């Protein structure tokens, strides 16, 4: 094999490695956020000697930004999976398909960045509250929920960075 071929094989392997890592990151983010749920029981009062408890649940569906996060990550994971599958099964991108792949790459990158940032700022609001609007922070009560949400957002950020790196390689 000539030197140019070796370099090209290495480039393809590098791009594939980036795509697999991005897929793992976005899939992990989707799953962790979708299964994010925490229930806490609070003692509200006492009736005689028995305490009256109320249970409060924090689910990801309660916040539209988190719902969008899950959907955006699911679509980005799907796109990554399609790209990896097409590389593995040797589908050639000729003619009309190559710009389509580039366009889909960009659209998914933009969607993923929007989803991640919406959820990240929502998480910041949940963690710090907003004293000007009288919004209390909820992370001191629901630490597990906040921790898992934070991990999901970090994983999605990693996936976003990896996916931003992959269009640069073919260019």
């Amino acid at each position, binding site marked *: 094999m000539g030197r140019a071929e070796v370099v090209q094989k290495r480039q393809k392997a590098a791009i594939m490695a980036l795509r697999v890592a991005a897929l793992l990151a976005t899939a992990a983010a989707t799953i962790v956020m979708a299964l994010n749920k925490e229930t806490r029981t609070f003692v509200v009062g006492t009736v005689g000697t028995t305490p009256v408890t109320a249970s409060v649940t*924090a*689910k990801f569906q*309660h*916040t*539209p*930004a988190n719902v*969008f996060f899950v959907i955006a990550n699911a679509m980005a994971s799907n796109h990554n999976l399609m790209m990896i599958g097409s590389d593995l099964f040797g589908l050639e991108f*000729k*003619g*009309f398909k*190559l*710009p389509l792949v*580039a*366009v889909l790459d*960009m*659209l998914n*990158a*933009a*969607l993923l*960045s*929007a*989803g*991640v*940032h*919406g*959820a*990240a*700022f*929502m998480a*910041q*609001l*949940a963690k710090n509250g*907003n004293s*000007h*609007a*009288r*919004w*209390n922070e*909820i992370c001191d009560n629901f630490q597990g929920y906040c921790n898992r949400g934070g991990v999901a957002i970090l994983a999605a950020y990693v996936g976003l960075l990896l996916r*931003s790196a992959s*269009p*640069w390689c073919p*260019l």
Partner: protein
Amino acid sequence: MAKIRKGVTLTLRLIALAATVVAVVIMVTSKETARVLNLTFTAKFTHTPAFKYYVVAEAIAGLYTVLALLLASKSLLSRLTLILDLVVAMLLTSSISAALAIAQVGKQGNSHAGWLPICGQVPHYCDKLVVSLVAGFVAALVYLLLLLYTLRAALSPVFAIKP
């Protein structure tokens, strides 16, 4: 053909520039004071980190658009412009998403977290925010269109079929 391409990109960039400037200016000048039971309660964009990020990101995008308009004649920078366009488009979508997430809580509240909506007390602030967010959304959309257009133009030699 090249003239039409330049005309379209110029128009799209001008629209994006106008949208980002409108978004920044309206959000920065939106401020309202409300009196509720002898307590004064001010609503400014600096109270929320998401809106601060929004203003900064839109300002960066606006400056980049001005730069791209001025350097449009040099064809050596077309690859760099494409990559930076992608970065700025992602910046714009991220900032509008963050601002919309917080603004949605401000308008409708979140009953599960015990967060009350604030738009009832500061309606003019909310109206100005809506205008600014719409302008930001238009800027993000126009940048995505610009990106699609320049990508299609850059990849047209690869086409076997003329679209």
